[in-house]
């Protein structure tokens, strides 16, 4: 297996375990951990599903279609941008949601929400950037 592909496979499986465990914990704690819903959804969909789809797309591209990968460096940058963005996004989402819910229960305004929303937005932009790199690498490889 190409060295740059192993991190995609490993990361996707780690997110699968983390996302499933978080979901199980949410069911166990019932209503008390519902602030984790966006983090649970994004860890599973961006972490497990997207990383595995990237791994499969690169594997099929390299082994089955006979096309040559345009840039391995882009694939490595894509991996780090996507995963750092996802960890930041899921963490910010959970902190923002639980903070907001706690403040709503205490009937108080949420201080610092603009900063937390900005961090969700910035990490989300990093994830979007990684998706763009995948798109670019695939288009260049298939047309190369």
């Amino acid at each position, binding site marked *: *297996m190409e060295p740059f592909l192993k991190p995609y496979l490993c990361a996707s499986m780690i997110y*699968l375990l983390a996302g499933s465990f978080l*979901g*199980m914990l949410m069911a166990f704690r019932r209503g008390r951990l519902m602030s984790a819903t966006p983090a649970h959804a994004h860890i599973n969909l961006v972490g497990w*599903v997207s990383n595995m789809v990237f791994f499969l797309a690169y*594997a099929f591209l390299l082994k089955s279609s006979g096309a040559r990968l345009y840039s391995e460096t882009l694939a490595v940058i894509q991996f780090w941008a996507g995963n750092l963005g996802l960890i930041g996004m899921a963490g910010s989402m959970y902190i923002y949601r639980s903070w907001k819910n706690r403040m709503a229960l205490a009937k108080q305004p949420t201080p610092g929400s603009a900063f937390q929303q900005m961090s969700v937005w910035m990490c989300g932009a990093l994830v979007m950037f990684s998706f763009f790199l995948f798109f670019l690498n695939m288009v260049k490889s298939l047309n190369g």
Partner: protein
Amino acid sequence: MEQPDFYLRFVYTAVGFLVAGPAFGMLMALKRREWVLRLVPTHTHFNLLGWVNLSLCGLAYFAVFNIYGYRLYSPLLVNVHYWLAILGMVGMAAFWFGSRWPKSPIPVWGIWVFGAVQAFSSFIFVFNIVKSVSGGS
């Protein structure tokens, strides 16, 4: 070495869930109101765990064993993964649907129990892939 074809079982089952998941969605669109609330978790988890998760597991098995030629660590664990994933998902969906009716006698803890079965099946999948890849081709 003969190429394993058990990934097909995962893909065929996933396609079955691709029919069932959207059928719940259509039912929600038809019945609306309280049916939407009762069916949302079942609909999302049938689509995501049934269709997306099972087909990705099948394709991952295909890529690791058929494309890269790694030797499968345990065929038995593939079977255990398959049946536990289905049991966990269907059980979770049934408890979710049943417990959302007014004054329902169906306990909510069933969701957690079958969720744990589903999470355990994911652990078996990861364990089998890691053992196979670290064992070499």
